[in-house]
């Protein structure tokens, strides 16, 4: 009776925060159901204004002879979890854009191991355990990366770092991505588990997962127009032949693209009435002309990324910014040049089919999030809250995850060919520098769902700059936790819990 086990989510997301409280009320668990938005009952920040960490919860699911059995908990098995977190940014290459391999960061440091924060793996067996990633160092100073816990059912919780970035050499912050002498405490690494069903002797290794511990998500109700789920779905389609439905569902496939674009009104002033045509095609079917108006506004992903497509959507920068920046005025105000990031080919085909009238009209109103926790739903919920581009270099992970790293199945990395730290090593160091820089850069935005450009405050109809008061990389390093979180309030999305 062979059992197989898999860990879900296959890529989990544990976000850093400077609230050190690791009791259940001190942090919150990230989304586990697609479309759901987590609003911690006691707020995103504690009474001292410190940002609570978002834990990633991992579960094991079992199949017996290929038949799905369900979640495996400590009520039926001894589970030994092993997690390794690392931050190897400072020992990796400088980020210089996709297709460009930069020289080493900190090239003058000969002891490369002193640049990698590698506390090593931690293991917990059974429920209610805790282990800390507290033995890593950067240039001799300790840098804790967080901890793991198991809950009463033996599920794994991963909590990331504390948002602490510094330079032991007092080096200045000079660039958005590559600051020698600096570290931060984001991290990533493999999650594995050995499962021994009660009464059995031999443990069975579960198919492994990965955890990334990126910066906080300040705008939980706003979803990226291209999420990491969309990007890695495309990877699965392209590399693993993962099938997608020939005929899209309006509710499940088309509406999310429209809704995300419409919702960008809450994080940028640039929408105005330009998205009225999107409102006009809801509910379906709308007219062919109305659908075509929307579709014709989209950039075709088959177009070379550095080619201008003025005024096509989405209005976010290309991955290949390095190759257009300074050329034809890209990145300068009001030049009208516009080399933007396209939807994924799968998203684009969904919209193309819809425009042609080839879609399932299953509309009964805006879909509510589901109520069941499912294996695939866990992965989707984790990834749809991350940016799927532009990766310049990206905020949660880099283009390596989309374009380079191997997968054993859709959304499940081949952990045997990766090292802890690989998913974050090409990210900006420290993350606050890129986060400060990635605001609207005329004529396009970067990732307004991660770093809102403009927001509303309670009771006001006027936009304010979300990161108002932040004037430098250093300000972001020192005061990031004072930034506000966005919440849905009736029909509007407003900033709350700003403590700057």
């Amino acid at each position, binding site marked *: 009776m062979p059992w197989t086990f898999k860990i879900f989510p296959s890529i989990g997301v544990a976000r850093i925060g400077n609230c050190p409280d690791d009791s259940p009320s001190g942090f919150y668990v990230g989304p586990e159901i697609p479309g759901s938005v987590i609003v911690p009952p006691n707020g995103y920040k504690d009474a001292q204004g410190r940002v609570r960490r978002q834990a990633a919860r991992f579960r094991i699911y079992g199949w017996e002879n290929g038949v799905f*059995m*369900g979640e495996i908990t400590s009520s*039926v098995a001894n589970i030994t979890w092993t997690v390794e977190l690392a931050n190897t940014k400072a020992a990796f290459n400088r980020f210089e854009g996709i297709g460009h391999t930069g020289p080493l960061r900190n090239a003058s440091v000969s002891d490369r191991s002193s640049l990698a924060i590698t506390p090593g793996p931690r293991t917990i067996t059974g429920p209610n355990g805790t282990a800390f990633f507290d033995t890593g160092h950067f240039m001799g100073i300790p840098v804790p990366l967080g901890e793991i816990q198991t809950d009463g059912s033996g599920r794994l919780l991963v909590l990331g770092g504390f948002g602490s970035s510094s330079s032991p050499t007092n080096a200045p912050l000079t660039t958005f991505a590559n600051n020698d002498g600096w570290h931060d405490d984001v991290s990533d690494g493999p999650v594995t588990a050995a499962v021994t069903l*009660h009464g059995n002797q031999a443990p069975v290794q579960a198919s492994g997962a990965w955890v990334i511990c990126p910066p906080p998500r300040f705008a939980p109700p706003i979803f990226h127009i291209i999420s990491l789920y969309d990007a890695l779905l495309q990877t699965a389609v392209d590399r693993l032949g993962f099938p997608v439905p020939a005929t899209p569902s309006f509710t499940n496939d088309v509406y999310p693209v429209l809704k995300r674009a419409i919702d960008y009104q809450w994080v940028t002033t640039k929408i105005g009435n330009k998205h009225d045509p999107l409102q006009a095609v809801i509910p379906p079917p709308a007219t062919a002309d109305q659908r075509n108006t929307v579709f014709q506004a989209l950039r075709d992903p088959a177009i070379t990324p550095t080619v201008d497509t003025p005024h096509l959507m989405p209005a976010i920068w290309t991955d290949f910014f390095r190759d257009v920046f300074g050329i034809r005025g890209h990145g300068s105000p009001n030049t009208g040049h516009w080399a933007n990031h396209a939807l994924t080919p799968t998203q684009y085909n969904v919209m193309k089919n819809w425009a042609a009238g080839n879609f399932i009209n299953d509309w009964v109103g805006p879909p509510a999030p589901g*109520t069941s926790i499912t294996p695939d739903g866990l992965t989707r919920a984790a990834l749809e809250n991350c940016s799927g581009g532009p990766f310049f270099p990206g905020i949660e992970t880099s283009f390596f995850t989309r374009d380079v790293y191997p997968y054993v199945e859709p959304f499940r990395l081949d952990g045997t060919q990766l090292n802890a730290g690989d998913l974050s090593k090409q990210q900006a160091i420290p993350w606050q520098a890129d986060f400060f820089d990635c605001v609207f850069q005329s004529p396009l935005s970067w990732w307004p769902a991660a770093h809102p450009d403009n927001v509303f405050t309670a009771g006001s109809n006027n936009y304010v700059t979300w990161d108002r008061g932040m004037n430098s990389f250093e300000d972001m390093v020192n005061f990031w936790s004072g930034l506000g979180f966005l919440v849905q309030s009736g029909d509007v999305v407003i900033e709350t819990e700003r403590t700057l």
Partner: protein
Amino acid sequence: MISRRVLLSWLGVSAGACAVTAGSPLSAATGARAAQGTRVINLESFCIAHGNHESRLDAYLADTLLPRMQELHEGPRLCLHAIVAPHIPQATVLAAFSSFDEMLEVRSSLASSPDVRQARAELESARILEDVRSQVLVVREESLHFPTDLNSFQTGIFEMRSYDAPAWHDGVPTRLLAVLHRARIHPIVNAATAAGEHMPRFTYVVPFASLAAREQAWSTLEADAEWIDMQRESTATVTGKSIYKLAPYSRLG
């Protein structure tokens, strides 16, 4: 009183969609009164919304629903907690009746009982329940072996396993039980599903001393030449299996 038509509609099928073969236990029991020698089992699974609400559901079952059922009906019943199932947390109540009419009568009385109504409304207003799934199984008298002494099952497990077996439209071959027993598989319920998808479908509830004993038993069966032949002939496939423990408050009716 809830009609048979309403009951079947709860189950997601029309009465006409019930695939019934003359002479099968199914046809005997889908009459208003079960034929001599058959019983009807109502299997109700309470799926708890994510969160730590098991104690609220347990309180509803142990303090309200089961005592009220006990007053209304003396038939045997089991209450189980899922430990491996597509949805956990989940509690499942199996109750055996002499006929559909009796089952409907009891359900109707429960539904109109003020304390049950109030307790259920409280569960629903607190969004404790994500889903309640009902199945009706039909079982021959000789295939129902609810234990008379639950103490011996306090530390063991129960498996509920369903087979889709198109070739068994006249019922499960009688020799199957002997094959199962050889592998130390002793079902306490060996029933046909009364309505739903993948008909005919057969559901077994099997107690085991432990997970290891379960593994051993099914491995033995898989290696049994007669079972291999039967499986090939029947094209029987497993459509679902879940593992349970006895709820602490479970008792016989």
